[in-house]
Structures are given as structure tokens and as C-alpha cells.
């Protein structure tokens, strides 16, 4: 709390600067721009999932479903109700936030454990998937919807798409940083360790969990809607559990839960691995699996914490793992993200 805001903001600014420079290198290649943009989409989902699972013990296996809510709702509002695309995206974001907040509220009130929340939200994902398939009049079922002309035209402007997504991601990192620099950060640290002790210490655990779920779901819904626009096409499968939730889970675990930069580093690594194994064709899945197993064996806590403690050994000032020195550690993490 005593950390000056300039230092708190430093890792966020560093990441923003590095990622803002990416189009200078690959801006000419639409293919590479697309990979970079999809990396930002994944990073945003992972930031949200970090808040849900990492900090408030809410295993929401419905990130894809919430994103599809954002995507489909925004597109349908523009197509059928002729809403302005910005208004549609805003409404879709609010709808996703309300849905996530509601799921969280029910889970907390009914006292669902972490795994049970996982099962329930996975069931929600399957329900949403089948609804999208079944409500053909609205969603075109398996065929999907061509979204060109129904959004802000991000699909036709790769650079614009990249920077819009970057702005959203940087804003979410800044919000995360602010949250954990405030007294709310102490509350979240406490409740992620033990909810009963947190409650006995005067922390309104229900309110924090529901608020975090609503905020994270808003981010997911927003990015889901932007994805619908930039991708030019949506179908139930682009938002399926295997396409969204599993990569998000893997990216967060790889990068490091409960860290500022873990979601970004994890998303970058995931995208990189995804590209590296592409040439293997049929062997892609195998190569992918081997790489993931190796990464998990080497970086069980995630890359960011490992790098932090490695740097911490060399730089004594970074060593203490208390929340007050977290800002410095995140700066150390920032150099990793920059590579």
C-alpha cells in the first residue's frame, strides 16, 4: 500500500510498451498479426480466469460460454435489432457480467466447493454449447454467423484489432494492479488462503467473490464480443471448452497463477507452442502434449514465479515474498514478458 503508484504501474507500462511495438516487427504479415491478436484474446481470458480461479477459488469452466454469450449477443443485437455496434458490445458485456455474477452468487450461497463449481460451470458450458447449436433461427446452428458488417470492422483492420485488444488487456492489467495495490488486495489474498478465517477477520467473502466473478465475466464477455468482430465469423465450436477453457487453464498454469504477468506470459508461451507444433501435422497433438508435460515438469508453479525467485536469488532486494515487495517482483517478471 505504501508503494508509489508509479512503481505499481511500471510493469503494466512495460508490458504495454513491449506489446505495442510488436506490429513494428510483424505488422506486414496478416498471419502473424492474427496470431498476435489471438494471443491478446487468450491473455485477456487468462487475466479474468486468474481473478476467478487464482484469487477467489472459483473454478469457472465456462469462460468460453461467457465469451460466446458476449459474441453471439453482440452480433445478434446488431443484426436483428440494428443496434449500434458499440452499444451491442456494451450490452453483451453487461449480460456476461450478470451471468457470471449470478453463477458466483448461487455457488457461494449454496456453499459449493471448488470442484463442484467446476462441474456446475462445465455443465453450463455444455448447455450453452447445445443452445447455440439448437437455436438455429437465431444462431444458424453449426454453420455459425458471418460477422462481417455487424461490428466495428475489426476483421478488416488487423492493426486496429490488435491495438483495441491490447488496450483492453492493458486496462485489465491496470485494474488488477490497482486492485492488489489497494486494501482489497489484502482481502483477496486472505480469502484465497482461507475463507472462514477471512470472514472471521471481517472480510465480506461473498461480496468479494461475486464482485470478482462479475468483473472477470465482464472482461470475458467484452473480449468474446471483440473476438466475434475481428474473427469475421463465429460458431459454437470457436467458443467451445476445448478451444477456450482448456487453453486458458493451460496458459494460466504455465504463466503462473496469482501473478500480474502470469496470464500474459502464459498466453504468449501457449501461442508460441501452438505455432511451433503446427508443422508436425498429424503429430501436432503428440508434440503438443510432450511440450506441455516438459513445461509442467520444469515450471510447476508457472514461469513467472520461477523467474521471480531466480532473479530474487541474485538481487536480494527482490527476495522477500511479502505483498509490499510484490511490485518489485512484478517488475522482475516484466523483463521476462519483454523477451
Amino acid at each position: 500500500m505504501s508503494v508509489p503508484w508509479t512503481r505499481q504501474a511500471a510493469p503494466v507500462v512495460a508490458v504495454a510498451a513491449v506489446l505495442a511495438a510488436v506490429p513494428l516487427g510483424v505488422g506486414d504479415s496478416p498471419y502473424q498479426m492474427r496470431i498476435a491478436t489471438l494471443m491478446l484474446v487468450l491473455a485477456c481470458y487468462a487475466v479474468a480466469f486468474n481473478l476467478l480461479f487464482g484469487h477467489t477459488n472459483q473454478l469457472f469452466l465456462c469462460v468460453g460460454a461467457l465469451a460466446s454469450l458476449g459474441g453471439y449477443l453482440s452480433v445478434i443485437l446488431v443484426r436483428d435489432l440494428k443496434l449500434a455496434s458499440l452499444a451491442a458490445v456494451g450490452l453483451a458485456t453487461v449480460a456476461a457480467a450478470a451471468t457470471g455474477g449470478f453463477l458466483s452468487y448461487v455457488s457461494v450461497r449454496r456453499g459449493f466447493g471448488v470442484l463442484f463449481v467446476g462441474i456446475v460451470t462445465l455443465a453450463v458450458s455444455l448447455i450453452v454449447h447445445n443452445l447455440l447449436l439448437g437455436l438455429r433461427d437465431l444462431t444458424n446452428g453449426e454453420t455459425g454467423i458471418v460477422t462481417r458488417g455487424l461490428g466495428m470492422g475489426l476483421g478488416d483492420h488487423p492493426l486496429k484489432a490488435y491495438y483495441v485488444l491490447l488496450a483492453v488487456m492493458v486496462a485489465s492489467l491496470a485494474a488488477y494492479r490497482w486492485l492488489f495495490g489497494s486494501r482489497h488486495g489484502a482481502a483477496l489474498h486472505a480469502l484465497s488462503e482461507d475463507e472462514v478465517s477471512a470472514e472471521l477477520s471481517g472480510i465480506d467473502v461473498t461480496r468479494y467473490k461475486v464482485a470478482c466473478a462479475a468483473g472477470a465475466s465482464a472482461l470475458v464477455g467484452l473480449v468474446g464480443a471483440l473476438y466475434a468482430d475481428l474473427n469475421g465469423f463465429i460458431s459454437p465450436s470457436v467458443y467451445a471448452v476445448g478451444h477456450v477453457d482448456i487453453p486458458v487453464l493451460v496458459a494460466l498454469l504455465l504463466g503462473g497463477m496469482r501473478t500480474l504477468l502470469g496470464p500474459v506470459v502464459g498466453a504468449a508461451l501457449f501461442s508460441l507452442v501452438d505455432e511451433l507444433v503446427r508443422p508436425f501435422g498429424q503429430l501436432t497433438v503428440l508434440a503438443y502434449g510432450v511440450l506441455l508435460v516438459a513445461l509442467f515438469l520444469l515450471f510447476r508453479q508457472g514461469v513467472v514465479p520461477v523467474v521471480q525467485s531466480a532473479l530474487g536469488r541474485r538481487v536480494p532486494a527482490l527476495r522477500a515474498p511479502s505483498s509490499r515487495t510484490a511490485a518489485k517482483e512484478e517488475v522482475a517478471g516484466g523483463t521476462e514478458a519483454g523477451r
Partner: protein
Amino acid sequence: MSRPSEPVLRCRGITKRFGGVVALRDVTLEVEPKALVGLIGPNGAGKSTLLNVVCGLSRPDSGTVELDGRPVTGLPAHAVARRGVGRVLQIPRLFPSLTVEETVRVGALFGSPDSPGPAQTARRVDEALELVELRDRRTEPVGRLNTQEKRLVDLARALAGQPKLLLVDELMSGLNPVEIQRCTALLRRVREERGAAILWVEHVMDAVLGTVERVVVLDHGAVIAQGPPAQVAKDPAVVEAYLGVDFHAAEVAG
């Protein structure tokens, strides 16, 4: 502030059932400001359940709980905590990866009705750590402490929230006589220096009877006796229900 005569805690007709089991039966009790009240009874008598009802972890089926004359029945635990109730758990849970100091700061930040500023928070943390004599362990992660140290951290966490009423659950089980003595001295200091009333559940009979001015005896969820320790220890109902013929043995073993 409350009037001097107003009890800090007043429980009236508390009944709590778990399925067919009646854990608490029409329990009525009061704790005066700055009082040190012992709550004893055999295993399963409902002592911890009563503390849970008071601090809001558990909702009574009937009856009311009042703090300083204001009803708090059915309020969630965090709201009761902010109204000045500190609860120390029998088996401390705490926040394993937080340090001692960070843990106590959580109590200081969220446990009181006022929102203390940074300086005030730091002072409350210092005071609480000073009182439990854990100042030199402040940077250690709580997960690395032994059970007794964890209990003291939990106590410090509760104290940092400036409680009017402290609910202490078995602070002393497994301690040797010297440690027990230090612990009872600590509770007396908490009462005198911090002005908190203490409702104290304990199995170590010597420690309770020798320290408190009033003791409440629960058996099968009902209050069967209360009063000064010397008087309660001679009460025939207490001797029969709880202390039994082995009272002397229990005293020695305790």
C-alpha cells in the same frame, strides 16, 4: 458507547439443532464489559457451537444474540466481526502463505468498524504482536509456525480488530504448565490492557477455574450452572454431569 450496566454480550434462549441432535437448548447468558468468563462442559456439550452462533458462523434456530444491546442474530460472520467480536479458533486455520505480520494486518484492516489509515493500521498490528510476544517472528510465513504459535497469531489477528468481545476456543490444549501459566497471564493482560471482555472455552480446568471470575457450565447443550468458580465446582449438578467422581483426577490430569 454502551451504558456501564449494559452487557457486551447477551444471548437469550439460543436453540440450535443439527438434524435430530439438539446442540444448544435454550441457552441464556450474559458477558459484562471487561469480564473474563469461562465456558466449560464435557465434549459435545455445545461450547464451540455457542461460540459459532455468537460470531455468526452458525445461525441459531431460535433465540437472539445482542452486542451492546443491539441484535446481531443471523448476521454474517464478517458483519459480526466488524461490530467488535474477535473469534480465535480451536484449530487455527489462518492464511498459510501470508507472514505473521500480514495476517495480523488483515485483522487490523477489516476487523474494526472504522477504516483505519496506514499509520493506525501499523500501530494496531504492532500492539497486537507485542501483546502475544511475536514481534520477532513477524516476517515468517504462518504455515511454518507450530500450533501454539498459530493460535497466538490468530489471537493477535483478532486483537488487531480492536474487539470488545473476544471468543477464545481452547487456547491451551497440549501445553505444559509453564506455557499454560504464560497463556493465562496473556488473557489477563488482554482484558486489562485492551479492555476486551473474554468468553473463554477451555478444557484445562485448573487454568479456567483459577483465572476467571465467573464460569458457565454447558451440558448436553443446556446451561446447568453458572457463577464464581469455587461455587460452581461444588454444584451437585456440575459434579454429577461433568466433573463426576473423577473431578480430582481431571484436575490433576489437566
